[in-house]
């Protein structure tokens, strides 16, 4: 079954929470909503679930208009950032609760809860109360409860955000496997670009209540439509700087210049924004095409396996992220290399320039 949002929007008073959005999610797909806090991820999910009623547009599910149908009457599950379980139920009863509501026979419930507990590694603690579990186990219980009833739509609202780093990594690894043989639509909200990348599937980038782009995760990462999507989908933040194209060259900061290359040769002369991800700015020259830039080092962070150098050129802050240990003194001048083959160019409105076709004006 397919979930279709048809120019769905949500305003409260004069405040627009979600701008009119069209989105089609296919059965069996894993979809990520990526954006910062307050970008509108949770509201969009609530509109999908029917917890919130849209102020404009329609929600269609499986070819039927379900706008306004109560969430109880839809086959929807939701998992939240907070670990939400029934505190006075055992883990077993917590997982069984949606099945009890559906009045399934006891034997069936027992079997399905058992299977689900097995899958989520909860078999040993079925008799315990949520308060006796670790954070990771509590969130596993909430996940099990969401999955046990075979929902058509599973909404996961930053479910790993409150977990320890390593637990997050572990559950992140397991999640796609849990959905691999299901035919439901999964929607997963996160603030972390890396998490979106690791899950794959499709990603929608959100910014201030607007879905800026939607598509297969890898494509969106490598071919953002505009500066906003590229920024949302970049961790550490993408480096952005103004450049000027004159003739066959791109000029940055007055003295740094490089050839526009075959792709951008025919671009009209003028001002553009140049964007490059931190890992394409490196202290070591990776290819002959890389362009050296001089910067003043603000701070170097060494993590043991990689180096993050914060520096500035003409008062614009830059970040470089690279493998290995590259230490610089604060305030020192450093040469870093821009991998311009991996860089993006944006026009005055922030749209990415994709074509080498001559600009008419």
């Amino acid at each position, binding site marked *: 079954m397919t979930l279709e949002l048809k120019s769905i929007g949500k305003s409260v008073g004069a405040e627009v929470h979600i701008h009119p959005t069209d989105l089609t999610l296919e059965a069996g797909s894993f979809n990520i909503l990526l954006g910062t806090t307050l970008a509108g991820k949770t509201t969009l999910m609530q509109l999908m679930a029917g917890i919130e009623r849209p102020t404009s547009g329609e929600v269609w599910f499986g070819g039927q208009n379900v706008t306004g149908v109560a969430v109880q009457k839809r086959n929807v599950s939701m998992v939240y950032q907070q670990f939400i379980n029934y505190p006075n139920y055992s883990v077993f009863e917590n997982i069984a609760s949606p099945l009890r509501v559906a009045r399934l026979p006891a034997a069936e419930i027992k079997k399905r809860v058992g299977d689900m507990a097995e899958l989520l590694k909860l078999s040993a603690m079925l008799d315990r109360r949520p308060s006796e579990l670790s954070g990771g186990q509590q969130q596993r219980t909430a996940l099990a409860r969401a999955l046990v009833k075979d929902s058509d739509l599973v909404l996961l609202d930053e479910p790993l955000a409150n977990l320890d780093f*390593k637990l997050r990594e572990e559950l992140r690894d397991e999640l796609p496997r849990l959905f691999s043989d299901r035919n439901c639509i999964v929607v997963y909200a996160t603030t972390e670009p890396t998490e979106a990348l690791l899950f794959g599937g499709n990603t929608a980038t959100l910014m201030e209540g607007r879905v800026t782009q939607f598509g297969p*995760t890898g494509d969106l990462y490598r071919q953002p439509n505009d500066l906003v999507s590229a920024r949302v989908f970049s961790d550490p933040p993408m480096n952005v700087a103004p450049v000027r194209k004159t003739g066959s060259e791109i000029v940055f900061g007055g003295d740094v210049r490089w050839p526009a290359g075959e792709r951008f040769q025919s671009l009209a002369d003028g001002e553009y924004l140049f964007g490059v991800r931190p890992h394409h700015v490196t202290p070591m020259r990776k290819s002959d095409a890389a362009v050296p830039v001089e910067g003043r080092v603000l701070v170097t*962070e060494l993590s043991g396996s990689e180096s993050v150098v914060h520096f500035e050129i003409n008062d614009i802050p830059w970040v470089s992220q690279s493998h290995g240990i590259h230490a610089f003194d604060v305030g020192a001048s450093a040469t870093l290399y821009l991998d311009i083959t991996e860089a993006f160019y944006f026009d005055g409105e922030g749209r990415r320039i994709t074509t080498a076709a001559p600009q008419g004006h």
Partner: protein
Amino acid sequence: MAKITLDDLRHSYMPNPTAEDDWALKQLDVDWEDGGAYALLGPSGCGKTTLLNIISGLLRPSHGRVLFDGKDVTDLPPDQRHIAQVFQFPVVYDTMTVYDNLAFPLRNRGVAEADVDKRVREIAELTDLTETLNVRAAGLTADGKQKISLGRGLVRTDVNVVMFDEPLTVIDPHLKWQLRSKLKELHQRVGVTMIYVTHDQIEALTFADQVVVMNLGEVVQIGTPVDLFERPQHTFVGHFIGSPGMNVMPCEVSGGNAYVNGVRVEAANAHACAADAKGLEIGVRPEFVSFADDGLPVRVTKVSDAGRFQIVDASHDGGSIKLLVAEGDEIPADTAKLKFDSAHTQVYDGGWIVGAKGGAA
């Protein structure tokens, strides 16, 4: 500013600890140099917060001494230790302006108002709070409030050590970057001893010159980020640090060579193993595993795109193994052979690295 010494430190929340598990903090002897940046890293419940509270004077250790510059401060209350602390959830005095917040510790100590003003403006400049000095602190965002907490610590000229208790927990990911590098930058500028407690390896590794890895109330390894990454003393460190963590698999050693599933692999310390050792394991980080023409035969089961690299899951007869491959590099479709970088492959006995004194315990 001070050098911090933890001498024969132990702590239990029970009146009469007997069993090993009764100790929330097991034997600890550490010297922290004046002006260093240190991190306490471990999963929840590992004892790092206990240790932090002992250093700050909020908790009296059941055994051992805390020395600042050789002076015993074990029985001194927090306000006499000249420390500063930034908490997980921002603590600001809501009713005061940012200026009054920063001035508070000085006014409490009866500093002349002219000196207070000078010092507050100086610190506001450092922590980027100059613009908001006259705003009520309650109105600031979470990262602004954390800067106030930090500023309140730094404003005193007599501060021995600034401690951070998971200070980025409530900060949005894209702001985490900024605040994190700001802390690092501040450390380099003011040169005061800083201790940073976290479960997040990235925060710990990028911030600290020396990281103390803790597990179950015990220090597992103290070392530079590079040490922890390249030569984990214990499989726990290997697993806990790095994302994904170190691969650990059973192996056999004979004649100075290590064997996994009967296939010979080179390990840096294989020669140091006792001839008849049982239950040995080999540990190698995903960063140091690569595809090769000859080596451990595996089947590729999953490839995740992490943007700047790919995480490959491969299975072999004895289990599974992860490796990292650069963005855009070719990955064999099904069967392949893996090579380990011998300089970064180690044999572990009972969890501890073979051939070196195990950890601090």
